[in-house]
């Protein structure tokens, strides 16, 4: 209520232009206090504008204290505030005053909501870089210490993310203190804090002196890795990667490996999962020698772990692991130490495991070469192509290109076909959609003959699928096939079949003909379009279903650029004009759209003549509304165009509405 008078005074003062102290802070603060959360949020998001209006001095002395004092708000507002303050250094007067931003951010770093806290920490990290070393020790480090010794877990959690940014620029004495604080948080009473510390352990190790890493970080790492809570232990696995990167081979062996070995056999599957999930990083961090001695046996165990989650995570890493093995002896190693386990996984009881394997197994062929692939891998591919779970088959098919490079796809074609046919008819439309997307690739690799014989009928069958998304994908697929196999092939195999559907009793199928023509006309070229497609489209203008008719108009607009002027003038225009008089308003609307497009094109073709006649409007045809009326345009249709603007968004989408029923794409099974 008090605010009513406020803005008036504010705007009165604003008349005076450009001074720093234009707006009474009360007015601005009123905005930040607005009762409506949304308005408050909007104001906070424009905090920089407010600060600008106040000038640097008053932002420091008035705005920031206000913000610091009133941090009890909805988390959404606090999140926006935390974000804003990270970029505020300029608005408080530059790096010399960056420390003024610390108090509000310190409060934000203690709130409960994780996203707010994380954002505050992010902003603090950003601002820390703007502090001079002196200011860092005078203001920033004390803040970190306060947070690290806070009562409630939230502030201690936030502190964990701040050690690594102030450590490198601190003096030796302060460095010792920082390490001390970090140490105590690693053994905090609250698991939340230990988790935060564990997740920052690697980052902190990277900024420490090597001696301290060995003498202090490693014991912390060992402790966290044997924490009573598995949620802490699994985070230590991540730290393991960073720590190993810093140490020499001997030190890794002595200081890290005992813990890592233990983690790979942890009693909690979550920890083992983490080892599997981070396997490639671990492999690179410990180097080839330790990999051979230690990681390979560990990996073998993970591949036959009792929990499917772990096996699936390990299966995902098979290819990367093999790729990263040293070239020397790689083939033997894979053949003897990895392949036997992979063979087992092909017949795993869990479909996620098989599917994970199927997504990478084809990649092994490039590593193992032609002979091994044919002898050892091919049977596995074939087995997976026959798997009961469609996802497994699909993953194999989607990676066919890897095999193609090594042994050629022909080796597989006998088994490929039944697999493809089955997927093509799968009850889940998402599976059908996925296989359609691989059709052009398969067609290219299998060749036109094989395709015509075996796959063409599938491609045509998809055109009459009862799911729109499939019909749409099938249409695009035809276009890609024509691009691959050429117009002659199109004319002989595809076009006649598509055109027959124009007489189908189901209007959805008749429309599919139109959609196919839209997609194919360009690839097929002028002759086929004019001679074979256009007559059908024109004939369909008399369809009894309005949706077909307005799609005729749309198709005519679409294929217009491919036709020559005679066809446009003699055949297309009269039909469009007739549709322009249709009783259905949407048909009229799209006919009008098409008429203007066609007219524009006709006019463009004889543009040079026009140009000399009307020198006052050069380039006017770029602008739809200003352009002079072309000769072919029926002026009587102008108002109709206006009338139907509103309908165009609704009706044409009716048929596409079923696309909305997308199921969430199957997510992978990590749940940590």
């Amino acid at each position, binding site marked *: 209520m008090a*605010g*009513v008078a406020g*803005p*008036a005074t*504010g*705007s009165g003062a*604003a008349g005076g232009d*450009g001074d720093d102290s*234009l*707006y009474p802070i009360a*007015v601005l603060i009123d*905005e930040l206090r607005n*009762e409506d959360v949304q*308005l408050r949020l909007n104001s906070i998001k*424009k905090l*920089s*504008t*407010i600060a*600008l*209006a106040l000038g640097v001095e008053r932002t420091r002395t008035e705005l920031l204290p206000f913000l610091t004092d009133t941090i009890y708000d*909805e988390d959404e507002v606090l999140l926006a505030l935390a974000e804003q303050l990270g970029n505020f250094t300029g608005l408080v007067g530059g790096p010399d005053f960056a420390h003024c931003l610390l108090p509000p951010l310190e409060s934000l770093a203690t709130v*409960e*909501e*994780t996203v707010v806290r994380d954002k505050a920490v992010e902003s603090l990290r950003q601002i820390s870089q703007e502090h001079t070393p002196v200011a860092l020790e005078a203001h920033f480090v004390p803040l970190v210490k306060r947070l690290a010794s806070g009562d*409630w*877990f939230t502030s201690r959690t936030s502190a964990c993310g701040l050690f690594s940014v102030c450590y490198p620029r601190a003096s030796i004495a302060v460095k010792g203190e920082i390490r001390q604080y970090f140490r105590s948080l690693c053994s905090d009473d*609250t*698991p*939340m804090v230990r*988790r935060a510390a564990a997740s920052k352990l690697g980052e902190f190790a990277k900024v420490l002196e090597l001696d301290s890493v060995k003498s202090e970080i490693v014991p912390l790492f060992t402790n966290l890795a044997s924490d*009573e809570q*598995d*949620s802490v232990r699994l985070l230590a696995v991540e730290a393991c990667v960073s720590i190993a990167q810093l140490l020499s081979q001997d030190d890794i062996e002595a200081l890290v490996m005992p813990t890592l070995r233990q983690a790979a*056999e*942890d*009693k*909690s*599957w*979550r920890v*083992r999962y983490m080892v599997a999930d981070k396997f490639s990083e671990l492999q690179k961090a410990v180097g080839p020698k330790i990999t051979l001695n230690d990681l390979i046996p560990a990996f073998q*165990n993970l591949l036959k*772990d*009792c*929990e*499917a*989650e772990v096996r699936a995570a390990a299966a995902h890493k098979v290819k990367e692991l093999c790729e990263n093995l040293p070239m020397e002896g790689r083939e033997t190693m894979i053949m003897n130490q990895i392949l036997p386990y992979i063979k087992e996984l092909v017949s795993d009881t869990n479909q996620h495991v098989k599917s994970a394997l199927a997504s990478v197994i084809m990649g092994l062929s490039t590593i193992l070469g032609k002979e091994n692939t044919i002898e050892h891998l091919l049977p596995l591919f074939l087995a997976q192509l026959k798997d009961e779970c469609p996802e497994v088959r699909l993953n194999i098919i989607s990676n066919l290109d890897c095999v193609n490079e090594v042994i050629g796809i022909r080796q597989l074609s006998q088994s490929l076909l039944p697999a493809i046919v089955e997927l093509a008819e799968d009850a889940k439309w998402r599976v059908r959609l996925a296989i359609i997307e691989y059709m052009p690739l398969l067609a290219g690799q299998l060749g036109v003959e094989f395709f015509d014989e075996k796959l063409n009928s599938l491609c045509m069958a998809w055109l009459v699928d009862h799911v729109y998304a499939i019909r749409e994908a099938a249409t695009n697929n035809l276009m890609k096939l024509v691009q691959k196999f050429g117009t002659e092939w199109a004319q002989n195999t595809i076009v006649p079949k598509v055109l027959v559907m124009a007489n189908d009793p189901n209007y959805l199928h008749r429309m599919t003909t139109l959609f196919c023509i839209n997609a194919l006309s360009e690839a097929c070229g002028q002759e086929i379009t004019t001679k074979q497609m256009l007559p059908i489209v024109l004939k369909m203008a008399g369809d009894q279903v309005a949706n077909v008719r307005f799609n005729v108009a749309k198709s005519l607009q679409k294929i217009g650029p491919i036709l020559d002027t005679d066809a446009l003038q003699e055949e297309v225009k009269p039909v469009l004009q007739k549709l322009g008089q249709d009783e259905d308003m949407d048909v009229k609307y799209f006919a009008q759209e098409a008429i203007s497009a066609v007219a524009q094109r006709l006019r463009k073709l004889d543009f040079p003549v026009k140009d000399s006649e009307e020198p006052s409007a050069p380039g006017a045809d770029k602008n739809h509304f200003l352009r002079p009326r072309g000769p072919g345009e029926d002026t009587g249709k102008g108002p109709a165009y206006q009338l139907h603007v509103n309908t165009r968004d609704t009706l044409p989408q009716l048929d596409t509405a079923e696309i909305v029923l997308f199921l969430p794409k*199957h*997510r992978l*099974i990590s*749940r940590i």
Partner: protein
Amino acid sequence: MSPGGLQLPPVSLGGSPRSTDVPSSEQPELFLKKLQQCCVIFDFMDTLSDLKMKEYKRSTLNELVDYITISRGCLTEQTYPEVVRMVSCNIFRTLPPSDSNEFDPEEDEPTLEASWPHLQLVYEFFIRFLESQEFQPSIAKKYIDQKFVLQLLELFDSEDPRERDYLKTVLHRIYGKFLGLRAFIRKQINNIFLRFVYETEHFNGVAELLEILGSIINGFALPLKAEHKQFLVKVLIPLHTVRSLSLFHAQLAYCIVQFLEKDPSLTEPVIRGLMKFWPKTCSQKEVMFLGELEEILDVIEPSQFVKIQEPLFKQIAKCVSSPHFQVAERALYYWNNEYIMSLIEENSNVILPIMFSSLYRISKEHWNPAIVALVYNVLKAFMEMNSTMFDELTATYKSDRQREKKKEKEREELWKKLEDLELKRGLRRDGIIPT
């Protein structure tokens, strides 16, 4: 050790005579022996393996249950470590990943524990042990310690509701009998909840833990310790933000009301907390919040009501005008509650102005006729309560709206000016306008 795998040593379980068939002098020794035998774990995922042995263990466990229930003097000091060892061996395990991808307790059937035929008897036995008249906490506390409790609490995440139900009883008995563990148990439950709210949003046993807490809160001594108040404000209130609130809302609301009955001065922070976390998009949760709020109002003291009536009724005004009719309806039902009605009547000079514009607008605009009818009743009630004010508000309704609009316009102008200013500064900084 290979985790979780089948690691059965070929120990024969056969041969021990039934406890009741041997002379009583030999029974204690036999009891210990059977406890040791029951430490052997079987793989129930493999339904065909060790059928005989599994059956033998089941009948042995049954005997143990009977024995501990009936026999006198069976809990000698040396039995305690063996009992705890047997229970630990059987129940403490890493819970498997959920079968269904992203297990949703509201939608999916829970995966039941395969080893339940044994596990149930172990829990049954353990509860009889804890409830036995001979049970001595002073001896047991050496074995039932913090580590034991921590592992027990982790099991509350089990997907199997039968297991959680047994765990609830077990933890409740432990909390009752081991005074030294109480603070620790509360703290660990805190940690579980905080992790649930702020880290994972996943824990199956929240309802069960809240149920235990409900009975614990009941027994808190007055005045309440700071620790308990902090638990209410920093843990229980934030629990309302969780997506799966419906699974434990009844138990949560019960705990909250228990707290307020203990200490009415907590009403204000609680209601302000609920306002802060009021659902923005989930109508189903909004209805739950309104239900809980009514439970709170049922026990509120008039002096406390006055403190929070303004923010409270601003929220209720928003709910009343919700386009979701269930939310509007739930809020309007407050006017059927006699006690709430009496509170509103006493404070109608404050509440009526807050509620009026929403009610007035809804009476004209809401799509649902049932809501409009309810709103008419509420307006009628207000009219009877405070007719002078009601007439005044009706008269000024239009001008009030206009004033609001004007204020809104002024806001917009202010922001426009501020933005112009920013733009100008930018231009000046870039040297486009000379300073």
